[in-house]
């Protein structure tokens, strides 16, 4: 799949933002007033910023409201609903904290649940796709939720939670990669099943339909060099999970916290780039590519 910057930014930032909102909804940390305002501002900047970034890849963003109509079948539509619901619930809850110094706990829990649901919906946009075997696994929502929760904990200053969640996310990440590397092979979809010609012999793409490129090749066929991928995985693991954990184990300091967050963000961005770039869409088989 084409690693579109807009989608990488969207999923990375909004995942982190909704993760932070989750912890804030639980009252962790228990902040009010200006401090609460800063926390919420960061969470909204990430969540809404991510959502806005995602509209950059739309052909017709001005029709985005239509996306609320198909919640019965479409995870994208569900994501629209849950994200708006989460943002509204958390806005009210945040207003209580910032302006009234009051914690409307039930509203916070609701907002936290909706935030997680938003991350889950986002993850299911990918996790539902049979056409991308690397994504089509319960591990996909599990991983994205774990990353969101861990990143949120990091941002929310929940050091203990972060120290537990980051390693969990790292393990899930590795599991996801290991499974993913064989996912296309294990899916049973091959050039032979794609063409129905396997009964004759080995199938090889000869001439492509057009000598130039096209939307499908641009969108779905992206080949990452194996060495390059391994390097990026090491970077993602190191920056996204290991370094933040190490930094958190050091005596607390704001600079260290900021470093941990930035490292995490960079690592997750690398992981997210790989999430797309390594994902093989089965349509590539028609072009003899994977």
């Amino acid at each position, binding site marked *: 799949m084409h690693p579109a910057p807009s989608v990488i930014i969207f999923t990375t930032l909004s995942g982190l933002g909704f993760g932070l909102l989750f912890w804030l909804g639980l009252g962790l940390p228990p902040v009010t007033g200006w401090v609460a305002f800063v926390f919420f501002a960061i969470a909204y900047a990430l969540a809404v910023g991510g959502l806005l970034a995602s509209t950059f890849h739309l052909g017709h963003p001005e029709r985005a409201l239509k*996306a609320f109509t198909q919640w019965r079948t479409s995870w994208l539509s569900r994501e629209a609903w849950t994200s708006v619901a989460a943002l509204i619930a958390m806005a009210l809850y945040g207003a209580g904290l910032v302006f009234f110094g009051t914690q409307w706990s039930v509203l916070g829990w609701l907002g936290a649940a909706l935030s997680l649901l938003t991350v889950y919906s986002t993850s299911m946009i990918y996790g539902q796709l049979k056409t991308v075997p690397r994504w089509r696994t319960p591990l996909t929502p599990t991983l994205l939720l774990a990353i969101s929760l861990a990143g949120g904990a990091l941002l929310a200053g929940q050091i203990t939670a972060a120290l537990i969640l980051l390693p969990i996310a790292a393990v899930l990440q590795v599991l996801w990669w290991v499974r993913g590397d064989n996912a296309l092979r294990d899916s049973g979809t091959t050039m032979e099943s794609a063409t129905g010609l396997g009964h004759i012999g080995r199938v090889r793409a000869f001439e492509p339909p057009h000598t130039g490129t096209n939307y499908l090749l641009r969108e779905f066929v992206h080949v990452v060099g194996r060495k390059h991928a391994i390097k990026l995985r090491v970077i993602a693991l190191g920056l996204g999970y290991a370094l933040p954990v190490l930094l958190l184990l050091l005596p607390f300091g704001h600079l260290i916290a900021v470093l941990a967050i930035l490292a995490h963000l960079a690592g997750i961005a690398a992981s997210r780039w790989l999430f797309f770039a390594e994902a093989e869409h089965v349509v590539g088989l028609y072009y003899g590519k994977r």
Partner: protein
Amino acid sequence: MTQLPERTEKKLGLVIDLDTCVGCHACVVSCKGWNTENYGAPLSDQSPYGADPSGTFLNRVHSYEVQPDQGAAQLIHFPKSCLHCEDAPCVTVCPTGASYKRTEDGIVLVNETDCIGCGLCAWACPYGARELDAAEGVMKKCTLCVDRIYNENLPEEDRLPACVRTCPAGARHFGDLGDPGSEVSQLVAERGGMDLMPEQGTKPVNKYLPPRPKDEMDHIPATAGEIDVLAPLLKPVAEEPKGFIGWLDKALEKL
């Protein structure tokens, strides 16, 4: 709407004969022409005269080389467009309801005025049947020429998809695959019509007729041991001219 209809009255679709397709791209261009001028936005082309020309096409002809365990490799031309699946994943993922499957005939369409161009339907399609038009920002796909097949402004014989009407080799057939008595269903039954990527569970309506067995002559031994299997056909009447003239004379007598 993105819910699929429980059932459709007809299952209109194409049957593509891989034994006959010569790979001429007639269907590709005829489709491009009709759908540039008709249904929805034109199929645009970027860098049309430039270094990297790339346009929207709703039908493309691939070609594959298949190497049997024994014998010569075969080349198979492989046209591919929307298969109008019964369980069309492209429809259910659509957030706006722009993608839908018609109740009356099962055609999968995009209502372009509702399309936000998110591309998710193309992600969900295993066949690469959908292309986002770079100029218009909406998803384009085969309409099975819904604006031809019922069009009362066309003579009845022309109420066919443009690709079927133009196919010089007659490798494309159009009809109701939900009706077991239809010509297309008969063809599928006789020739072992197949689904593409059946494991994806999309239940494609369009079927492909596999190539007939090829190069059987390479598998007949002209002489099986001592016995000449061609003997009845190539039994020598003469090995040299003189004998031949003698045979000729006798053979002419019999005429």
